[in-house]
């Protein structure tokens, strides 16, 4: 039995249609016309305990709706959801006691209180036994380097510091499942790395199941073995990121700096993506032209200063994937 089970999940909202302008707004007061919006349609997936899954998709794709349903805030229109044997929206209080949630855009700490006071209050809210609470809190404080921040009111923390405190706050009751909704949004580079490192440790060392939504593809690259892409409410793919990449954009990129002027290259299966006076960027399919052969062919004819191969950036892969599925921003 998987820890999280989602079957044929659908959520339809009713949205009021309004004619533009003041007359339209007034007419809307008297006679409203509703239009159904399918936020989710027939989404199914399951997650075993200890997995780390990234949920990605353009804005408005249905990621937040899915997370809200899984965390018990929202009731689906149809379909079946079970998390640890409970139906989240039927048994909210019992369910939320067993999960942790971090929203990148929203704080769950008390703005005017020192961090530590917020933690104490959360321990009471979640009914964590004092001894267990102290042990868990000390562990999280060490892992997230929160010691110097504990006495500061939350409003004085930087965003990076606050996110570390948010993570601790979401984990004080030792949940088996953690939902992260865009946890690195707006963070500077070192803070992003710290968050990723912490999530990875939590997942690997403590076996916490993690479901993460993000727009930052480096989060996906650094963390997730498994990726679900949704677009316009539909599940588009579910699998390891590498197979997504292979199915979408198998090409490699060859960057060459020439000793002299960059030549005009005409080779079958190779396209020139960019050129400057002394350099070229080529795109090719390694299954058709093996990389060593291509390099050998070029260096045989031209004097080369430097050469390196890379893959398309993950953003590019995803953008291409959205295009292929016509899943741009809704």
């Amino acid at each position, binding site marked *: 039995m998987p820890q999280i089970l989602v079957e044929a999940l659908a959520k339809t909202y009713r949205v009021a249609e309004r004619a533009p302008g003041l007359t339209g707004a007034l007419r809307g007061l008297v006679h409203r016309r509703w239009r159904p919006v399918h936020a989710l349609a027939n989404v199914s997936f399951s997650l075993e305990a200890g997995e780390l899954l990234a949920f990605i998709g353009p804005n408005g794709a249905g990621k937040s709706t899915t997370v809200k349903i899984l965390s*018990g*805030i929202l009731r689906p229109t149809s379909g079946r959801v079970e998390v640890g044997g409970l139906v989240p929206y039927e048994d909210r209080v019992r369910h939320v006691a067993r999960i942790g*949630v971090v*929203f990148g855009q929203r704080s769950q700490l008390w703005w005017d209180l020192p961090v530590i006071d917020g933690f104490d209050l959360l321990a*009471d809210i979640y009914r964590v036994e004092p001894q267990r609470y102290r042990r868990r809190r000390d562990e999280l404080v060490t892992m997230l380097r929160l010691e110097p921040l504990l006495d500061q009111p939350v409003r004085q923390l930087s965003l990076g510091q606050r996110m570390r405190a948010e993570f601790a706050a979401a984990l004080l009751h030792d949940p088996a499942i953690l939902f992260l909704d865009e946890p690195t949004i707006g963070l500077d580079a070192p803070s992003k790395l710290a968050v990723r490192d912490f999530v990875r440790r939590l997942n690997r060392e403590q076996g916490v199941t993690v479901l993460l939504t993000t727009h930052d593809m480096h989060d996906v690259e650094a963390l997730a073995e498994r990726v679900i892409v949704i677009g316009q409410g539909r599940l588009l793919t579910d699998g390891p990121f590498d197979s997504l990449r292979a199915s979408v954009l198998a090409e490699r990129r060859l960057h060459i700096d020439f000793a002299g002027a960059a030549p005009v290259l005409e080779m079958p299966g190779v396209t020139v993506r960019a050129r400057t006076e002394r350099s070229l960027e080529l795109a090719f399919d390694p299954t058709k032209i093996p990389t060593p052969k291509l390099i050998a062919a070029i260096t045989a004819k031209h004097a080369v200063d430097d050469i390196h191969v890379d893959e398309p950036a993950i953003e590019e892969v995803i953008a291409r994937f959205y295009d292929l599925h016509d899943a741009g921003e809704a």
Partner: protein
Amino acid sequence: MNALALYGRYVATSLRAQAQYPTATLMLTAGHCAATAIEILCVFALFHRFGSVGGWTFGEAAVFYALVNIMFSLADMLSRGFEVFGTDFVRTGAFDRVLLRPRAAALQLAGYEVRLSRLGRLLQAAVVLVFATSLVPIAWDASTIAIAVWAVAGGVALFMGILVLQATLAFWTVDSLEIMNVLTYGGVQAAQYPLNIYAAWFRQVLTFGLPLACVAYYPVLAILKRPDPLGAPDWLLPLAPIAGFAFLALSFVAWRAGMARYTSTGS
């Protein structure tokens, strides 16, 4: 930790947060005290001009005034989360965070913010009560004190019920509706005068619709040991405040319907 103890923790937390801004809190409290004190001056002006209104003296009216304001200030202090529910919770999405915690949403909202500045109105009303006692012969014995406490409890429940209804409407309208102030502030204004000065239809409203008379007028008659000029039996007077609790219970029925709607629409 049980719900009541947790509520106490919420209150303590809120007080500590306000202690971060001591000057602002003090000035708000003083301002609130002064602003509400104007109201008793208006009542005094009215009685000064006409001598007595509907067979009541100023001292007796001041007892109504004081008890109603004590009820309202306590309810207002304890239900801030419901009062600002639309603007601060539904519109901002902060209600999601409330739902993510393994406790009743109503408990979390009640403990959201206990505003010390409301002590201003409470203090002012308490002063008026002491003053009124010197004007009217009230025998503060165990039974009258018990009736007063019971009436205040019923009144706090009633005003909380209004604020819970106001919050419930926000599930549909998203914003907190200022129009509900007609019931809260308007209710305080209406209930601080004795019921028999009003027209019959309005008396019906204040007894059976929004039962303010049940938590103010009737128990105060019992405290003053006066028979009801409108003819309600004496034994009924001290029981009337139970209507406040009934009103609160009904408000929570509506609240549950609102919660169910929220979880199915998410907005």
